[in-house]
């Protein structure tokens, strides 16, 4: 039984296309920032903000909300884009990314924009915080879930594995992590810079439940998160295989797009490609 109706799936795919478009507009307005990772994670952020999370954009700090922790803070533009479309703030505000005085800080800051839950950018710290939240929620008998988005590159960091061990020890079943397994980091392919595989077996050895999905397939994203809720004894790691730069064929898979924004001309080309893609996604038959 699928977790999404066709109508739900099409709606999410359409929103993801809009997230990508806003993201490119934001990056070109900012004149700096990251392109590849955010494009690759647009489907997952859309699924979270428009289907998975129990949240209220008009009351971002509602006590019983699910927590979404972004550990690899450099991809925050895609989170801002999804949040803007979900109603946390306006498109116009999203377009102030990285500007002086903006709440859209280059790397997310909780004290500036509380709805991002935590400050990140320095890699390898998010999973620890998410584990701390999950343990605290359990101690306090709270029912909300903790989601942590992490990247493959930050699995180079010892801190990540300290958190993995900790979450395994405390059997944090209310914690679900999603890894952006896009195979790139700054200096090249992850397996050249610092081989990470076998990731599934590593997580399993640390007492996690592991799922692997196509990170661009809405049905698989939602199904994996639902499946994780039924795992009572372990935290779950969803290894989401994604394509860096997804949606803009000319930059897909290219690690050199990790940390630069498109120029105005490039952005116009990218936006044409993304709009064509958006048009292919049919309008939803029923909401």
């Amino acid at each position, binding site marked *: 039984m699928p977790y999404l109706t066709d109508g739900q799936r099409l709606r999410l795919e359409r929103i993801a296309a809009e997230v990508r478009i806003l993201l490119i507009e934001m990056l070109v307005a*900012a*004149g*700096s*920032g990251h392109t590849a990772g955010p494009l690759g994670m647009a489907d997952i952020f859309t699924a979270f903000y428009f289907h998975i999370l129990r949240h209220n954009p008009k009351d971002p700090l509602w006590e019983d909300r699910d927590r979404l922790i972004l550990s690899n*803070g450099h991809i925050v533009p895609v989170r801002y884009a999804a949040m803007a479309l979900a109603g946390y703030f306006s498109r116009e505000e999203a377009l102030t990314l*990285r*500007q*002086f*005085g*903006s709440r*859209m*800080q*280059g*790397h997310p*800051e909780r004290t*500036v924009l509380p709805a991002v839950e935590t*400050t*990140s*950018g*320095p*890699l*390898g710290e998010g999973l620890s915080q998410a584990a701390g939240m999950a343990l605290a929620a359990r101690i306090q008998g709270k029912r909300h879930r903790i989601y942590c988005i992490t990247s493959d*590159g*930050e699995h*180079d*960091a*010892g801190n990540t594995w300290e958190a993995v061990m900790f979450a395994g020890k405390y059997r944090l079943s209310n914690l679900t992590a999603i890894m952006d397994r896009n195979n790139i*980091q*700054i*200096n090249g392919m992850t397996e050249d*810079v*610092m081989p990470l595989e076998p990731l599934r077996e590593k997580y399993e050895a640390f007492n996690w439940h592991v799922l692997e999905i196509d990170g661009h397939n809405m049905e698989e994203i939602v199904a994996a998160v639902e499946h994780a809720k039924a795992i009572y004894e372990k935290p779950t790691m969803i290894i989401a295989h994604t394509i860096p730069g997804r949606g803009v064929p000319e930059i897909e898979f290219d690690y050199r797009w990790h940390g630069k924004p498109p120029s105005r001309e490039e952005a116009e080309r990218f936006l044409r490609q993304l709009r064509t893609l958006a048009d292919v996604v049919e309008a939803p038959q029923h909401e």
Partner: protein
Amino acid sequence: MAPVTSFPLHPGVLDPRQREMAATRDGFGRGVVEAGERDARVVVLCADLAESTRSAWFRDRFPDRYIEVGVAEQNLAAVASGMAAEGLIPFITSYAAFSPGRNWEQIRTTIALNDQPVKVCGMHAGVSVGPDGATHQALEDIAIMRVIPNMTVVAPADAEEARKATAAAAAHPTPVYLRFAREKTPIVTLPETPFTIGKAYVVWEADGEHPVVLASTGTMLFIALEAAKALEASGVAVRVLHIPTVKPLDTATILDATRGARGVVSLEEHQVAGGLGSALAELFVQHQLLPMRFVGVQDRFGQSGKPDELFQEYHLTPRDVIEAVQALLAE
């Protein structure tokens, strides 16, 4: 207006039409290749930031002496310590926020206490990093390195001095922290301008007696010189003291250059707490009491913005230096 002959300045300091700009990290990139050419023991360790730290320039020249550790700054420091123990001269490179920010204790124990001559190279220091925001703007690195025994701390004034400092660090017997910036800043020195680790330099001499001394470290030297020109034009005698080595301080030169001064204004693109100004205050209270003002970041985090917007916001401009001097003189 009296630049000092013993410290030749780039003509662009006085004449904006001749100004040349380069980032101090570029000076590192050139300096570390020079060091590598001179000494086969020099190796460079990189933590997934090859291009932006300029360690790629060394990699392209000496691929066999370039080591990639991935996003793992703690491992970066401790692996380098091990390599130094076997006789190599490792330069470890990352952003200052992460190295020495994240790996401070590994640096303290395995490099400083253990006395292994590793060179810690912190890039993207200061608010001039710009749009990346507070997480990436290291403003505490001088403080946390300065308090570690056996650590030498150097913040070069421009790309040229950064090149010299990097090459000099390779030959220096102790662990060294080298501080570099991302953005281009004016070239202040020339190839023939002196640089020695541990030395401070008077670079601008006052016309009148009892001058105010502007004491700066790192790329704030250019701001100090801009302020000095404006102050002298308004009849205030100023002397500019350039202190690239924050630790150990060149106490003889600094005490000489400040004896009889009306006061001292310190300049640094760093927290006022624990940086150059603090180091000078520690010195002055023991030897010659001088009124001081501190130009630097006043106990705040950085934020996203353009470098010049942030220099305004954090009061790091020549205008702010002039106001600090006026406050001193009004005492």
